[in-house]
């Protein structure tokens, strides 16, 4: 009998803070500038310099800690993490090891072990050997990024699958984006995610040997990389082997995993307290400011929408993007008789689909205001137009910015409300389609679809489906 295995996954997420200057010096942060135009004696580690902590970075960090429901440490200190590599001119990185600024938090179903502040390394480009480190003959170092403030968030090993990591990662990203403390742009590297992965027999509570999957630039790739690594570990263990502790890179193009560093180079960081920096002791005012700055975060907002009767899926879609949530709330504000569930379905369903058809038009550029969509939803809800006609109107609104009532008038889409008129069309449809009419009378009720279709065609979609059904059944003697 083969053993069932479960995966155990913990994440380390680096968030680049959107301060104006670096963590310990006044050099400006930038992305995409010429190399080495934002350096100074501090971030180049020239002899005799002293780092000074950026107050804004502390403020942003405390906000992240508060948003992740962490205990904010009364005293946090900096340490030196020693390693020798050209991306780090001091030969140590300033980080927080012994006393991080935040501990014991939670976001959704995942516990946060701690969050700490540190400085980013410089960017190295390996020349020769096609840009990969293997086979390269030299490296070019750009210190613009060196010293950028980072918050590293370390989770407990509470995740179990690649899909769960993707979903949770998106929640984390949306949460931090909403705080406004980072761009959280994975392609530009302002949000980076490493995953520690191990497997164990299902139900066991011991941890297997873990591997580390490094630095993937989208949550889709992370999901695929993790699934590939779980499959690899199961294969190794099932065939009697042992998982070796190593760092891996996932190539999304080929779906392959490559080992980055050999075991012999396992880290030996020799941490020691950073004597150049004094402790950070958040004052009551700093803590208060961090807690008060929290906007309504995605998880809380999704819960509130569900309370209003919005489906879980629509609530999540709306909550993760501030603009979409704002649009949805704008619809409700414009017409408070609209049911939130109905408004959410229009916004995340038909409306979002129309934007996608328009080359994925961003919401911010849409010609449709929440008020117009509210008008349209009102026309459908009050049965002035059918749902099908509503979609036709929406298409026109999205492409031309037209007013919904004007489109209805111009295209003559107003629903046939005179049941006498509709009844005539129904009788005509039964006469024109003797075959399905006969089948229905013979007991095959499914054939009614053909007659509904005929009526809709004759009315150009202006009839209410429920009413058409009722009249058809009446005239067929059902």
């Amino acid at each position: 009998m083969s053993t069932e295995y479960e995966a155990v996954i913990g994440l380390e997420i680096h968030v680049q803070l959107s301060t104006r200057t670096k963590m310990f010096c006044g050099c400006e942060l930038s992305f995409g500038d010429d190399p080495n135009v934002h350096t100074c004696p501090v971030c180049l580690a020239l002899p005799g310099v002293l780092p000074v902590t950026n107050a804004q970075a502390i403020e942003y960090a405390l906000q992240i800690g508060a948003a992740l429901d962490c205990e904010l440490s009364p005293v946090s200190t900096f340490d030196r993490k020693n390693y020798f590599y050209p991306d780090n001119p001091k030969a140590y990185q300033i980080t927080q090891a012994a006393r991080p600024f935040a501990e014991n938090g939670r976001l959704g179903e995942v516990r946060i072990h701690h969050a700490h502040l540190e400085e980013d390394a410089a960017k190295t480009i390996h020349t020769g050997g096609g840009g990969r480190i293997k086979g390269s003959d030299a490296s070019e170092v750009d210190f613009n990024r060196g010293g950028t403030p980072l918050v590293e968030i370390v989770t407990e090993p509470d995740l179990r699958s690649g899909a769960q990591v993707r979903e949770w990662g998106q929640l984390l990203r949306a949460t931090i984006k909403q705080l406004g403390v980072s761009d959280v742009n994975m392609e530009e590297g302002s949000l980076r995610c490493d995953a520690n992965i191990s497997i164990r027999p299902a139900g066991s509570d011991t941890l297997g040997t873990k591997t580390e999957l490094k630095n993937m630039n989208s949550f889709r790739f992370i999901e695929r990389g993790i699934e590939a690594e779980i499959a690899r570990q199961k294969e190794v263990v099932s065939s009697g082997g042992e998982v070796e502790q190593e760092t891996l890179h996932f190539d999304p193009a080929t779906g392959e995993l490559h080992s980055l560093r050999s075991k012999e180079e396992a880290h030996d960081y020799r941490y020691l307290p950073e004597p150049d920096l004094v402790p950070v002791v958040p004052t009551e005012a700093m803590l208060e400011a961090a807690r008060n700055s929290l906007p309504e975060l995605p998880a809380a907002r999704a819960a509130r929408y569900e309370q209003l009767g919005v489906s879980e899926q629509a609530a999540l879609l709306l909550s993760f993007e501030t603009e979409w949530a704002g649009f949805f709330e704008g619809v409700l504000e414009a017409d408070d008789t609209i049911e939130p569930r109905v408004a959410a379905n229009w916004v995340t369903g038909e409306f979002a689909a129309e934007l996608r058809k328009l080359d994925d038009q961003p919401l911010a550029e849409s010609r449709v205001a929440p008020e117009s969509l509210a008008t349209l939803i009102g026309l459908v809800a009050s049965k002035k137009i059918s749902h099908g006609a509503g979609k036709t109107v929406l298409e026109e609104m999205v492409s031309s910015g037209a007013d919904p009532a004007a489109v209805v008038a111009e295209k003559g889409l107003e629903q046939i409300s005179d049941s006498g008129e509709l009844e005539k069309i129904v009788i005509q449809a039964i006469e024109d389609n003797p075959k399905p009419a006969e089948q229905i009378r013979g007991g095959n009720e499914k054939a009614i679809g053909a007659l509904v279709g005929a009526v809709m065609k004759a009315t150009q979609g202006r009839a209410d489906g429920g009413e058409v059904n009722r009249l058809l059944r009446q005239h067929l003697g059902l």
Partner: protein
Amino acid sequence: MIEREQVLHVARLSRLRLSEEEIDTLTGELSSVLDHVDKLAEVDLEGVEPTSHVVPLENVLRSDEPRPSLDREVALSQAPDPHDGAFRVPSPQAEA
């Protein structure tokens, strides 16, 4: 007492190449440093807060205002092998 192997390990982490003579000298010197630390470790520190800094200061912070950076020419002037505005260094892989 520190072993020769440990000295070689630390030297490797720091990318230092030591001569046989230096290894012998350093093994002795590092041993006496560690003996001294062992002596300090004998002090009973139950209930004493770790000292992170000898001066009783906290929250020395700087406002997030940009200050001028160095001209790139100046920044690179000490570099042995500048190239295309970058610090060019031997490949870390080749060196390892």
